[in-house]
């Protein structure tokens, strides 16, 4: 009888970890735009407070993304063998591939979240 796996979804199979950061980006985008739309339709005027709300979303989103970028960097495990070749058929290759991809997606999401928030800081008007 095979040994019972330690985890239900071991890291070399877990795609959800890889898309976590882009998901945070998507949720941040949705929240920032929905809040702005509602704010400008119902409150208007004082955009400074809106900018603070979007800043709050952004700090939270970036913290989650950095946290996951670190986790994915560890999963990539680059520093042990400086290995960025992932086309082997071992669990390690798959795990490090997912870590590498997840790390790059986290970097992309980090920049994208800043781009999403920039209008709230720079435009300063609902018009």
């Amino acid at each position: 009888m095979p040994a019972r796996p330690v985890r239900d979804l071991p890291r070399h199979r877990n795609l959800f970890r890889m898309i976590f950061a882009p998901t945070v980006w998507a949720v941040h985008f949705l929240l920032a735009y929905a809040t702005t739309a509602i704010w400008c339709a119902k409150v208007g005027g004082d955009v400074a407070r809106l900018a603070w709300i979007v800043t709050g979303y952004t700090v939270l989103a970036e913290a989650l993304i950095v946290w996951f970028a670190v986790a994915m960097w560890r999963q990539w495990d680059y520093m042990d063998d400086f290995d960025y070749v992932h086309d082997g058929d071992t669990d390690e290759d798959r795990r490090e591939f997912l870590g590498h991809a997840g790390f790059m997606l986290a970097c992309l999401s980090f920049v994208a979240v800043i781009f999403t928030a920039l209008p709230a800081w720079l435009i300063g008007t609902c018009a």
Partner: protein
Amino acid sequence: MRGATVGHVAAVLAGAGLAASCGGPQSALAPAGSDAATLSHLFYVLLAGAVVLWLAMNGLMLWVWRIDPRPMSPKRARLLIFAGGIVFPTCVLSALLVWGLSIMPDQRAPGEGLRVEVTGEQWWFRVHYWPEGATEPIRSANEIVLPVGARSEITLKADQVIHSFWLPSLAGKTDMIPGRVTRMSMEPTEPGEFRGQCAEFCGDSHAWMAFTAKTMTPEAFDAWLAAEAGPAAPPEGELAEAGRQAFLAQGCGGCHAIRGTPARGRVGPDLTHLASRLSLAAGALPMTEAALARWIANPAAVKPGAKMPAYDHLAPDTIRAMAAYLKGLE
């Protein structure tokens, strides 16, 4: 030889086309307003940056493929791709985004004093001037007149379908949406005559939906606005008087208004000072008696789908008289 001649002609034509697009009454690259100047500056900076990048990229390719083709260590190649393909574009795009966004608020700065309300119709522009403190607008059509050195507020509306208001010499474009009021503002910096047009497809004669614009010194503008608010000039001469009578007899006043006469319709453009405008039928025709006669006889022949009915059942003399009357409405 023949190929070379064709090549020369093509080059000259292309050059002329490019040069023509940089000037004239409807060019974002020949700004006469502060907003357009900002956009033009943005364009030239982006163009210069693109030229530098293009030369650098092609120079780099020339260097590694032709001038000094040497194998590169995979580590160095990866570093080059990382720095040149990821870090550098991210920094450039971030800088451009920050710059572009920081420019945007000024593009919609609130106007002061005069407000001009422009409504997009099929296919012409209804124009109402609201000087500060006015309770009734000064009605006009198909021409925007603005004072130089002041930021005027532009309120935009639309009837039936979406249009877009674009006067590239003065500012960027803004959509006109039925049921909504959008706004922009313009700050002309030079007196002149310009051309704008509808920049959103709006039906059969979208391509014929243009307008003219004049910018003038504040003193000249005040004088112009006072004249525009006044009633129409009475007809001069027998022909024009006959034209006036025909205009009223044919029921033109059901749709058009000419202040100071019984014509009070508001369906079509206000004609009170029609002849003072630079063009006829929203930029479709020149402001001449011949063009007026042609328009009255059959508007849809000039602008497909135009709602004004044809009057080609009238005697040519009657149409000519109406044209003479309208041409006198300065």
